[in-house]
């Protein structure tokens, strides 16, 4: 995932209403009307939030129905939360491999030294 996508993800998540919408969608897809119920907001205002979430790739909306039910797309959320962990894992795994490689070199060196005797 590119930083541009992540950037969109984070701006979308910066708003408490949008986070609440995502939490509701975690329970299953819902139409705009249903999503608007818990909030003191107009349908157009909720639609605006849904558009932001849709652009960030956090939700997908059905094309077929008049109400265009929204559903959650989980992948961008996972990526956003894991970014720094990926970087840490990069170093941890590299150094694990470095340790393996040093052991290999040592084994080869031993072989060379004991070689002529055998």
């Amino acid at each position, binding site marked *: 995932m590119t*930083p541009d996508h992540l950037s969109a993800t984070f701006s979308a998540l910066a708003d408490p209403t949008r986070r609440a919408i995502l939490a509701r969608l*975690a329970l299953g897809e819902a139409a705009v009307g249903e999503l608007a119920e818990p909030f003191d907001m107009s349908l157009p205002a909720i639609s605006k939030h849904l558009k932001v979430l849709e652009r960030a790739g956090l939700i997908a909306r059905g094309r077929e129905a008049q109400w265009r039910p929204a559903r959650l797309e989980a992948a961008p959320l996972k990526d956003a939360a894991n970014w720094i962990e990926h970087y840490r894992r990069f170093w941890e795994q590299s150094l694990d*491999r470095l340790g393996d490689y040093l052991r290999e070199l040592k084994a080869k060196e031993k072989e060379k030294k004991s070689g002529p005797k055998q």
Partner: protein
Amino acid sequence: MAPSNNSGGKLTERTVLVTRVFDAPRSLVFKVWTDPSHLAQWWGPKGFTNPVCEVDLRLGGMLRIVMRAPDGAEHPMTGVFREIAPPERLAFTNIALDAAGMTLLEGLTTVTFAELGPERTRLTVESRAVARVDFASRMLEGMETGWTQSIDRLGEYIAKLRAVR
């Protein structure tokens, strides 16, 4: 380090600190870090290879590595040496690029080689990383307030819900 660092007083970077002790002499550990024929053998996550690995070990010299993932995807990385003190310290910038050459992440990495014995070396990697777009500061602030944990939980919860269906 990164230009984005100067854009304001906000916390925009994150430090990763990893330490390992190896049963090998310090000079050898330093060598496998700085000799490209050795470096290419271990750099990167498990299962990755390094078809390109160039090291110009001078102050201001370039480091250029192209990692190839098990799925064939290539991940280029470049950097510049900022400190070379054999066999004790090494510092370099590391810039991860996407396929189009755009910067994804910029880091300043300092590697310290401590001699614990003739055959024992403690290696410490400290990498300050900053992402070149504004998502970094939002993400890092978010981590402080803990909301990413809820996102993680939300993600896991969604995965569970999907598995049940």
